């Protein structure tokens, strides 16, 4: 019953988030601040992880292709496919569920504990619109972070491949360009937009409706991370089935 109640409350929260909009001059500032906190502030970790995981994907692929009949350029092909289809949109989103999701839950949860949300409500402000809507808008720029993850993942793969001596630069680039299907990028960005929505709203839900004190803020952050990750994995499967099969 609790799960059903939470699902209902989540959808009511989404509906409420779009009602009674906050004054644009105030909202503009909030959106810019959230873009800075959620997107710009995450680029460093996204870049670091993408580059090195791209490298690891390449090395593992190269080490597993030991049949002399399989051309070397397939390492570049496999890296591109892994990074664009799965690693950048999904793996990075799981990382972001930890980084951005915890930040959202703990910041909103702390506002709940310290009665700042009550203060907004008493003033006649739609606190859900004030707190969650700017995060939702900021996360619309999330595909920008994922584009960087795709580029750096392939770049990291290329560096690992060439400097590790697994294939030549030309072979790797040939593989990256081989049999490119533009729809795969569309698929990746459709997933990214769905994940962005989940990343903005699920942690907000757990922060906004939390009860208790500082300890519960920590628990809410953990729960938010778990459920955001679960929903990302679930939607990843559903969207892949719908769009690629």
């Amino acid at each position, binding site marked *: 019953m609790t799960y059903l109640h939470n699902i209902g409350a989540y959808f009511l929260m989404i509906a409420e988030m779009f009602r009674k909009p906050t004054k644009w001059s105030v909202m503009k500032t909030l959106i810019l601040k959230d873009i800075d906190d959620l997107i710009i502030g995450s680029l460093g970790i996204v870049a670091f992880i993408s580059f090195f995981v791209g490298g690891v994907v390449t090395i593992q692929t190269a080490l597993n292709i030991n049949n002399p009949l399989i051309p070397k350029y397939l390492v570049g092909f496999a890296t591109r496919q892994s990074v664009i289809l799965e690693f950048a949109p999904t793996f990075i989103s799981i990382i972001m569920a930890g980084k951005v999701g915890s930040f959202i839950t703990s910041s909103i949860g702390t506002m709940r504990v*310290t009665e700042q949300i009550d203060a907004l409500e008493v*003033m006649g402000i739609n606190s859900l619109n004030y707190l969650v809507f700017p995060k939702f808008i900021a996360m619309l720029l999330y595909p920008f972070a994922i584009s960087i993850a795709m580029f750096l993942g392939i770049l990291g793969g290329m560096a690992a491949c060439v400097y590790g001596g697994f294939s030549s630069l030309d072979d790797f680039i040939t593989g990256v360009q081989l049999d490119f299907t533009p729809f795969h990028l569309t698929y990746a960005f459709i997933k990214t937009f769905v994940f962005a929505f989940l990343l903005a709203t699920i942690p907000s839900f757990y922060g906004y409706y939390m009860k208790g004190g500082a300890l519960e803020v920590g628990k809410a952050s953990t729960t938010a991370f778990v459920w955001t990750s679960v929903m990302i994995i679930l939607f990843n499967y559903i969207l892949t089935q719908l769009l690629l099969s």
Partner: protein
Amino acid sequence: MIEVKDIHKWFGGTEILNGISTSFNEGKTNLIIGRSGSGKTVLLKCLLGLYTPDNGTISYDGKIYSELSNDQKRNLRAEMGMVFQGSALFDSMTIAENVMFPLRMFTKQSKSEMQDRVDFVLKRVNLADAHSKMPSEASGGMQKRVAIARAIVNKPKYLFCDEPNSGLDPYTAILIDNLIQEITEEYNITTVINSHDMNSVMEIGEKIVFLIDGSKAWEGSKETIFKTDNKAVTDFVYSSELFKKVRKMYIEENE
């Protein structure tokens, strides 16, 4: 004036407010007192519209809150100021930004007009040089005064304070009490304070409502509380030897 009629509020199977009826007068400092768990905060949150009573009505200057449209409720709330127990300042904003916040949200004033108003209210609460400080850099007493400044910046008709001097030293607590009373008289605000501080009761309680287990057990003023024979009130208010002596002296002086 705020009128409360037969308010009931349940949480789960427990009745927290049990048919409270009273009124809070304009331009007066009204106190809700009672032991911890007596329902003071729930009553205050019902007055603020944060909780919806399960039964009964609350009316503001004759307008019943539950019968108002959402827009009317929002407009009414814009006329309320609230000082929370923990101040509830927005910790991502400076003190000046906190105080300016209601003006940014609800008025069309220019930045210089808003700045002038913020300067005025911060000066009024003796925080003229604290504009650029963050709430985390302010002491408990300063945070309470900033919360008062934020509550009055938009010239509210109703001011609500949840234990405004809890956790403060006696000197600062009296300063806060006096400040609230002065502001109430100055702007003719209907002020409702939730407190179990007996100094506040003696100093500023122009109207006092005493709650026990969610029911109104007594109501009166700081003058009548000295004379009352209501055992529940005397047990609560005069629980310390000091206040027993104060009461005795007051009665002797007035005989």
